[in-house]
């Protein structure tokens, strides 16, 4: 069964992911892709605490996730792949051609970012990366939880998403 959701969310594992998406999709596992978390036992233990019984979590660097992608994508259970920033997802997308859609789930304010949606703030550089991904055929939408409508990248960048 393919990974159902490729999500960029600076909170990584949290309520919207585990409950909001996890329950309706009947998610069996999460692949958390982050070079820093993948090399920190303490960080991994922290995020494991947030995952309910019956849901597995795998911690991978970008390189490892790309190498093992076919295996994850062939799992019998539904999976979610998470990164905390756009750059990590971009790096993964360049190595995994099967990655054809990206969900912007939560990118909150930081210096240099401009608000696009209640839960999406982007810097000019991040906007350009998303445009580049879209030009390569990757569908980029923003959607925090399944009950809300997805916002297209064009609408998001033109301020028509609210």
């Amino acid at each position, binding site marked *: 069964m393919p990974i159902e959701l490729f999500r960029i969310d*600076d*909170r*990584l*594992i*949290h*309520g919207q992911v*585990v*409950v909001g998406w996890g329950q309706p999709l009947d998610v069996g596992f999460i692949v958390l892709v982050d070079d820093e978390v993948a090399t920190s036992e*303490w960080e991994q233990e*922290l*995020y494991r*605490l*947030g*995952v*309910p019984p019956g849901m597995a979590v795998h911690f991978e660097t970008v390189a490892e996730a790309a190498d093992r992608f076919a295996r994850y994508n062939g799992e019998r259970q539904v999976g979610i792949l998470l990164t*905390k920033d756009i750059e990590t997802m971009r790096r993964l997308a360049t190595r995994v051609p099967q990655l054809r859609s990206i969900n912007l789930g*939560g*990118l*909150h*304010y*930081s210096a240099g970012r401009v608000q696009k949606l*209640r*839960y999406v703030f982007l810097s000019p550089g991040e906007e350009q990366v998303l445009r580049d991904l879209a030009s390569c055929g990757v569908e980029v939408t923003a959607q925090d939880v399944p009950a809300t409508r997805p916002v297209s990248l064009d609408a998001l960048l033109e301020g028509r998403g609210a």
Partner: protein
Amino acid sequence: MSDAGKSDAAGTALVPRALVAGHGEFAIGIVSAVEQITGRGGVLVALTNSGLGADEIVRTLRDAVTSAGARVIFTDLPAGSWTIAARRVQRDRPDVVVVTGANLPALLDFVFQTHVTNDEAARHSADKGRGAMVVLGSSGGSAGGAD
């Protein structure tokens, strides 16, 4: 954050003893309910994560621990970002106790646990909250006991 420095029904000033950190308006609502029921304001400080990223949530919680002086953090959801943030704060502040899955009976119990340590009060309130979850009625239709 809700107002600190409130008083109880007898006019005695109460200092914050715990932070209540939840999604949306959860903390504000449940702290309001505790104050309405107990008449004790200012014991709990409400925090919301609306509009905050992961780093801001940790910073907010760390600042609240310092400014309020509270050493107990209640969070609403074990899988939530507040709980993750609370564990990060706990790493630097091992004197902080975290209780996750907070509900109203747990918080009511905590407010009245004034003569024990923070750790004891937190554990007692967690037991109270856990035990307060009861299913009433039955869809099995066995009422009446007729065979």
